[in-house]
């Protein structure tokens, strides 16, 4: 401590230890904040149209367009360590061949508590496609609204807000 240099040295190493401790405390405090957000999800309509396979340009592929209605209150998820919430709507289905698929069709980034009341009536951002290029082998699908809390520092957490109560059938190509 005899010179400015040694005071700076000792001070900065103590400071960095304190900051590490602080970040750890913030991370641990996050586990205290557990909240169950409420929400509702309904599927409006699904149309199966003819489209193109993005992986083989010449191939045709059936594309599913989903219209949905989502209401959710995410405000209880916002605490001091919440940086943003990534909200996503996914379709979950099994094909007759036994392949289990989870496909995200819509997502939104929520950055502030003020924006955390969700009320969306919209069309999907990402259309549904199946690996078999048709929905004939897919009887129906469940839909779930999930979230991912991204903290300022610490552990990422995941959860589910809402889910369709019964599976939604896929119409035939071109039909409503």
């Amino acid at each position, binding site marked *: 401590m005899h010179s400015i240099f040694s005071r*700076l040295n*000792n001070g900065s190493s103590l400071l960095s230890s*304190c900051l590490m401790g602080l970040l750890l405390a913030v991370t641990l405090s996050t586990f205290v904040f557990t909240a169950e957000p409420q929400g509702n999800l309904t599927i409006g309509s699904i149309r199966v149209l003819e489209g193109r396979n993005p992986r083989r340009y010449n191939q045709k592929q059936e594309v599913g367009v989903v219209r949905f209605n989502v209401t959710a209150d995410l405000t209880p998820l916002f605490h*001091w*360590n919440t940086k943003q919430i990534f909200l996503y709507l996914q379709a979950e289905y099994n094909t007759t061949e036994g392949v289990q698929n989870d496909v995200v069709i819509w997502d939104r980034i929520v950055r502030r508590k003020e924006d955390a009341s969700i009320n969306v009536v919209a069309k999907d951002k990402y259309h549904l496609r199946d690996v078999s290029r048709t929905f004939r082998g897919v009887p129906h699908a469940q839909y779930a609204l999930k979230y991912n809390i991204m903290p*300022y520092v610490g552990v990422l957490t995941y959860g589910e807000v809402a889910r369709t109560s019964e599976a939604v059938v896929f119409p035939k190509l071109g039909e409503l």
Partner: protein
Amino acid sequence: MADYINELLEGRIDFEGQKLVEKLMYYVLIASTIAAFITGLALQSLSLTFGTMGLSVAVLAVAIIPPWPAYRSHPIKWLPASPQPGKK
């Protein structure tokens, strides 16, 4: 001239001053870390926590980095020089 700048940059303080600086550093840093955490947690604002820390660090830096005269008020009392044996 070079000696003067050297001494200015070195910022030497006496032993009592060093003890004081060390105590100050430990207490203030640890106390402000705890205070910053509690304030932020209570008011749910992370920026408040780091703002508090930043302010405390700034004030502490001004208090302990420069060699204030308060840290030089107990200079070392050297014993009088004893006669050199065997020298003229």
